[in-house]
């Protein structure tokens, strides 16, 4: 099971807390999936969202506040400070938006904000592209966790660049790697775990499903299946079919 900055988490599934039909359904989704970490946004709610924060605290999971909706280094750093105060945690999912339509990360501002926050003692979980150069910089800044996207936020398109994600895994064998964003189906979540990733973070795929609780359960099973498969050392695909019984002599039996 994943270890984030020294904290053991019981599940490789991380869930967002936005867009559920109700807080009650959100709570049931967490219970059913046994997700170990809940991400929470602050940018729009600011300090006045205390009632919703209390409902999230009642989930009894680890809370990972995020800087969703921040477009600059300064906004992200200010929001991280507020998150530390409101949630009493030095964990921060660092998100700096580069494009307000696609919500792609601004990787330059991301690296800069990560340097500032790591120096201030935050445990930074950066939402990034799968670019190796950017990930190197984030690790140099002090990030022990990297969270490359599978596809843009809310797109549900799955792993757009499995090769890039596989390369990251090979290049950073000791970093904690999480596929964050773009997961639409349990098969996408399983695929991320099959690549040897430590965890998967998703929100829309569960919250906007017709039955969020059922989908949360499906995601939990998929993540578990993918994790078991990665540990089991899967067979390599090959170009030729490989019959498991000898064909020699079959004609004689026909």
């Amino acid at each position: 099971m994943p270890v984030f900055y020294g904290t053991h988490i019981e599940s490789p599934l991380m869930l967002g807390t936005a867009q559920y039909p109700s807080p009650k359904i959100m709570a049931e989704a967490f219970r059913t999936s046994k997700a170990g970490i809940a991400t929470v946004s602050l940018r729009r709610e600011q300090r006045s969202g205390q009632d919703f924060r209390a409902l999230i605290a009642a989930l009894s999971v680890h809370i990972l506040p995020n800087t969703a909706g921040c477009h600059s280094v300064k906004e992200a750093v200010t929001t991280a400070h507020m998150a530390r105060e409101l949630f009493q945690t030095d964990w921060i999912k660092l998100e700096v938006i580069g494009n307000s339509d696609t919500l792609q990360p601004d990787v330059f501002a991301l690296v800069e904000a990560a340097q500032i926050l790591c120096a201030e003692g935050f445990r930074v979980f950066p939402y990034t592209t799968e670019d190796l150069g950017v990930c190197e910089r984030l690790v140099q800044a002090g990030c022990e966790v990297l969270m490359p996207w599978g596809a843009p936020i809310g797109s549900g398109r799955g792993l757009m660049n499995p090769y890039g994600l596989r390369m990251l895994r090979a290049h950073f064998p000791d970093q904690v790697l999480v596929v964050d964003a773009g997961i639409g189906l349990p098969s996408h979540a399983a695929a991320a775990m099959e690549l040897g990733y430590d965890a998967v973070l998703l929100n829309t795929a569960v919250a906007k499903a017709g039955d969020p609780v059922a989908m949360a359960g499906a995601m939990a099973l998929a993540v578990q299946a993918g994790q078991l498969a990665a540990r089991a050392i899967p067979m390599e695909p090959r170009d030729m079919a490989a019959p498991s019984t000898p064909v020699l002599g079959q004609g004689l039996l026909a």
Partner: protein
Amino acid sequence: MGQIHILGAGVMGLVMATELAARGHQISISDPAGGPGPGACSWWAGGMLAPECEAESAEEPVARLGAEAAAWWQKHSGCVSYQGTLVLADPRDRADLSRFARLTKGHQTLDEAGISALEPDLAGRFRQGLFFADEAHLAPRAALKALVAGLAARGITITAAPPAKPALTTALTPTLTIDCRGLAARDQLTDLRGVRGEMLLIRCEGVTLSRPVRLLHPRIPLYIVPRGDGVFMLGATMIESDLRGAITLRSMMELMAAAWAIHPGFGEAALIATGADARPAFPDNLPRLIRRGDVLFANGLYRHGFLLSPATARMAAEHIETGAQPEFLHEVSP
């Protein structure tokens, strides 16, 4: 049955008063503001009576019980428009339209010609839409005022303060208080929370719509409700916050951009008012009746004040009259 006093003259209080008075109960009603106004979140409501569309994100009781709303409002306020609801999406967001269609009932799929037949001003702007023919809408402030007038016609006026408790119980003493104070009842109901909503009122001479139009968008869903005389209501944000302060620029820009996407003619509209308030909600986002001794709370109508207040008031009346335990009744203590 003795006297019933209702606290609060927002949509829940006025519907409760109207329903109980119509059933022959002796009622009185008070509100610190003296009547419906900007202090009540229903003042800022969209007024869509759209139970089928709400099923996209709400639980089953909303669609079933919301179906009572249009007939109730027509009977008691006479200001319901039965024009249905039109749901649209930009071509690149068509996945949201198919999702909406899968999660709702009672709609027909429209093509470009079907959309322009319903709303000629939208001709050529959208290739696909959903039409919910059975839905309705009303103008919230006019509807609330009609309920006040209806109560006045029965000799019931809204006082600023509840009746003082006399030292001795008399026949005129309220035997039951129904607390419909919305978010203000948080002093008694600890799991009530506020969900912020923001809206705009605009006047636009260049665009005519006959019915509420919903524009689906992965991040900025918008509805636009025609109020008549060129006035439209644009709404509404949903933010997990009880902040009641003025609308933010971001929310305003998003609402305006979405209106522009429905028709660029809205770009020439005059902005006549903005509004922001916090809706009262319980963790399941469904209304609750809570009985504690001689107080009955009716609260948590969330974004469904006009849609679910008639069913909530009916259940309260059944509980009072027969001791029934209707589905919204959550807790009973002596």
